């Protein structure tokens, strides 16, 4: 029982990282119908930003987090402006966008490989690590910090989207970009803002991920990004609460698979979930059917 509960909490912790990354996929998809396959690599960018600040420059943790978030937000916006904006403006076919996204992903991986070489860099003790007794359990502080940080971030994100002017503009644009333009909302600014927020969230995910797995490579974003994408699809791509729930469920699925002693097949379980969702309910748990409009 204790073992089982511990695995549940580990799953929630891992899942909240997936959720933070899945949000970026989902928010960007909601507004542009673009599956930004370069999003996973933003985690990698965030991890290296943390490494540069914390290890190379020796800054305190808060400064490293801030720098990673800002840097990723800027990289996200630059990618949107340079790679996607023209395609989106011209209503390019989805396949062109998808191929561009894969190209951006490869560009980022190779760029970071050139800069930092392909060997793994170690970024240990990013987050303070000690066991915390929770009832009969002993949970690592890193796990609890991850869960708590994610909860706070998601509450803030909900406030942003529900209460602020720009958040409402995001929702309006994602629901009907043409009607939003008639209200005076600039799609261009809203899309750029969405990329910035999504990439910033991925940077937070990166710091938390590095806190748990302190070894980083230029390719670390691929699998993590794909799993977060599965989480976004499971929750219903385009849906913010869906991305959160999808992330947590994928995290739980992974850790329960491990708890059952099937560690070798966790990836297969995650992608099996993707296949099941696509077969049984392609719109995901909370997805809506999108109508397309001028």
């Amino acid at each position, binding site marked *: 029982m204790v073992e089982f509960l511990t695995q549940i909490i580990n799953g929630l912790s891992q899942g909240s990282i997936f959720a933070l990354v899945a949000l970026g996929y989902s928010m960007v998809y909601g507004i542009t119908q673009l599956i930004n396959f370069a999003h996973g690599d933003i985690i990698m960018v965030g991890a290296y930003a943390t490494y540069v600040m914390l290890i190379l420059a020796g800054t305190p943790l808060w400064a490293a987090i801030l720098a990673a978030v800002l840097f990723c937000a800027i990289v996200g916006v630059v990618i949107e402006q340079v790679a996607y904006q023209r395609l989106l403006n011209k209503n390019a076919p989805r396949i062109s966008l998808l191929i561009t996204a894969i190209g951006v992903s490869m560009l980022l991986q190779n760029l970071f490989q050139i800069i930092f070489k392909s060997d793994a860099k170690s970024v240990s003790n990013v987050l303070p690590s000690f066991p915390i007794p929770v009832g009969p359990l002993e949970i690592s502080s890193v796990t609890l910090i991850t869960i708590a940080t994610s909860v706070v971030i998601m509450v803030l994100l909900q406030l942003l989207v529900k209460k602020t002017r720009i958040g409402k503009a995001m929702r*309006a644009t994602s629901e009907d970009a*043409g009607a939003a*333009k*008639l*209200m005076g909302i600039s*799609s261009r600014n809203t899309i750029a803002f969405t990329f910035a927020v999504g990439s910033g969230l991925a940077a937070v995910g990166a710091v938390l991920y590095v806190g748990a797995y302190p070894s980083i490579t230029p390719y670390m974003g691929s699998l993590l990004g794909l799993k977060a994408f599965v989480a976004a699809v499971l929750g219903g791509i385009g849906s913010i609460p869906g991305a959160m729930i999808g992330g947590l469920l994928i995290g739980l699925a992974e850790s329960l698979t491990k708890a059952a002693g099937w560690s070798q097949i966790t990836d297969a379980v995650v992608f099996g979930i993707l296949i099941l969702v696509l077969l049984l309910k392609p719109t995901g748990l909370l997805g*809506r059917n999108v109508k397309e409009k001028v």
Partner: protein
Amino acid sequence: MAESNVMLSVKDLEVYYGSIHAIKKISFDVREGEIVTLIGANGAGKTTTLHAISGLVKARSGEISFCGSNLRAMEAHKIIRLGLAQVPEGRRIFASMTVQENLEMGAYIRSDRDKVLEDYERVFERLPRLKERRRQIAGTLSGGEQQMLAIGRALMSNPKMLLLDEPSMGLSPLLVNEIFSIIRDVNNSGVTVLLVEQNAKRALELADRAYVLETGSVSMSGLASDLAADEKVRAAYLGAG
């Protein structure tokens, strides 16, 4: 009303969708204070014309000017700032947002908060059904209420001119009465109106002047009362022979 100020002027407008020639050199104008209607059958090009004005589709050639500004050179989201608001075909309210949030989106461009608060009250006075449903999700409103919300949302920008695209679509005759009397009322409060309708009978009753659109061209124009009495219009659009 003879030669009052032209507010919106469209000259030799041409719009293509790929190789489809949707609008073929149409010209018309709307003067300050008027209600002008653009009537025509399904597919005549009414919506395309409004979308060209509001920038949602790009014109191939021609001129569109509103209060002296060249709209063709302007991005869609900037046009509402000139005081030109559109109630789009099919209402296109933000279905997952509340009534209140939809109205807020209508006031998106405004920074005069106190005036905006007054304008909510004015909109609710004019459209009392919305007031009761302020906190309701807009997608759950009835068709008539959604149309009212679309109108209220456009009014929240405090426009000089309102473009309405088939506001009577899918509504019962009783609700059409209500919507048309709202449009009359809005016009009386000083907002110029360009009304696009398939329901020619009702549109001609309401409007001062009218243009008939046929497969992308203006086939007739004149005083609404004259067109309503015209044999050809009666035969083609008013179901009289």
